């Protein structure tokens, strides 16, 4: 875990998605996802300390419909950024996602807009936002809050990209180069600050937070 022992207090735990569009099969998928992940939705949000520094933290869950982003995921992350902005707290975000959740149509796509606007407000007030990309972070999450951090970290070999590799292969009708969309290559392309293995992440975050004056 990234946070100090027993420091995590979860927020908005009870929020559950509804089938707003009456999309065929979505209700059953939600039930299955709740069972598989033992969570109510695809992101956990809350407040904690890391090395004694107060932070707001969110962690997406790949066991909940591939970490897809619907209205509840969007709302929970937006609320977290608003909470952090009001209290001048940094945000640490752990991303994993296949993208926007199709079954919620445009409502899910527009969560990208909603969260990005909340991130911008947090940013404008001088607050720190650290993203930790994990495998895979793609689609609408890559094209919004995963790519808006002040500091962007990644786990080794995580897939990070906008379009899915199969879609690109089909469009171009060619095999993709070795290492394409892997964190190491994305860092070479200039979009990641550092690749940090799991056992070093806590200490790394602690150092970054302290260098920004938190936890004093």
């Amino acid at each position, binding site marked *: 875990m990234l946070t100090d022992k027993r420091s995590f207090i979860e927020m908005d735990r009870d929020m559950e998605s509804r089938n707003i569009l009456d999309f065929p099969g979505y209700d059953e998928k939600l039930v299955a996802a709740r069972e598989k992940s033992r969570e109510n939705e695809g992101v956990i949000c809350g407040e904690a300390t890391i090395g004694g520094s107060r932070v707001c933290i969110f962690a997406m869950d790949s066991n909940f419909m591939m970490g897809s982003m619907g209205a509840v995921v969007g709302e929970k992350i937006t609320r977290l950024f608003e909470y952090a902005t009001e209290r001048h707290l940094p945000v640490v975000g752990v991303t994993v996602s296949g993208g926007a959740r199709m079954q919620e149509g445009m409502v899910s796509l527009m969560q990208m807009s*909603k969260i990005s606007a909340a991130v911008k407000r947090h940013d404008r007030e001088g607050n720190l936002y650290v993203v930790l990309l994990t495998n895979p972070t793609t689609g609408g999450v890559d094209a919004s809050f995963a790519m808006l951090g002040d500091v962007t970290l990644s786990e080794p070999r995580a897939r990070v990209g906008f379009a899915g590799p199969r879609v690109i292969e089909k469009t171009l009708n060619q095999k993709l180069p070795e290492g394409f969309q892997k964190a190491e290559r994305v860092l070479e392309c200039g979009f990641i600050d550092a690749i940090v293995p799991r056992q070093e992440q806590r200490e790394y975050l602690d150092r970054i937070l302290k260098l920004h004056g938190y936890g004093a």
Partner: protein
Amino acid sequence: MNDIEIVKVARSENRLTSKDFLGGVVRDFVEFHGDRLFGEDRAIIAGIGRIEDIAVTVIGIEKGKNIEERIEHNFGSAMPEGYRKALRLMKQAEKFGRPVVCFVDTAGAYCGIDAEERGQGRAIAQCLAEMSDLETPILSIVIGEGGSGGALALSHADRIWMLEDAYFSVVSPESCANILWKSTEKADVAAAALGLTADKLYKLGLIDKVIRGVDMEKLTGEIAGQLRELLAVPAGELVMQRYRKFRKVGY
């Protein structure tokens, strides 16, 4: 028309493109090129001009009219440099106090190795974040295809309008059917379920106006009227209202 028929009409090749709307609505248009970072993306046409007496910045995703033009404009699928050009000119619009009008028509942002490696995700994310507090009015009009993130990137606007036979969707109905039901033949079922038509999106409160039939003179007046209304709102209040507009989506 049912929903999949609307998607097909929105994609059809003999449809009006952004160039037609630029010609029909904007006077004295001057095109500007390049993102100042990497290159010039012809999938996005951008510049300044006048709508009635209002100086505006105009950004349009262009698909092209014939095969040569379609190749030139990459079939209306923008690269990261296209979105960065759009954002550069939106920032300039803010500096000079000009409102921004975007014409959106794309199957999606370009999917390719080069697009990925130059940061397609980051380019779209920056449009969303920066447009959210741009201190000048933004009006986006979906004139054909509103294909996912690539269309959303130019739709973080004070008002979103759509032609009645345009669509705006999180995913193409074909991909959706393929992912969920392993059959592109069920695209009609997916199209109906996704709620992607202008009328459905208006009912959901996600867009602000449905344009029925294209009459350039009437449309020019409507756009000018809308821009005047937004220009009368103080910048801080405008940004606040834009925040609230997207803040309430889904909740």
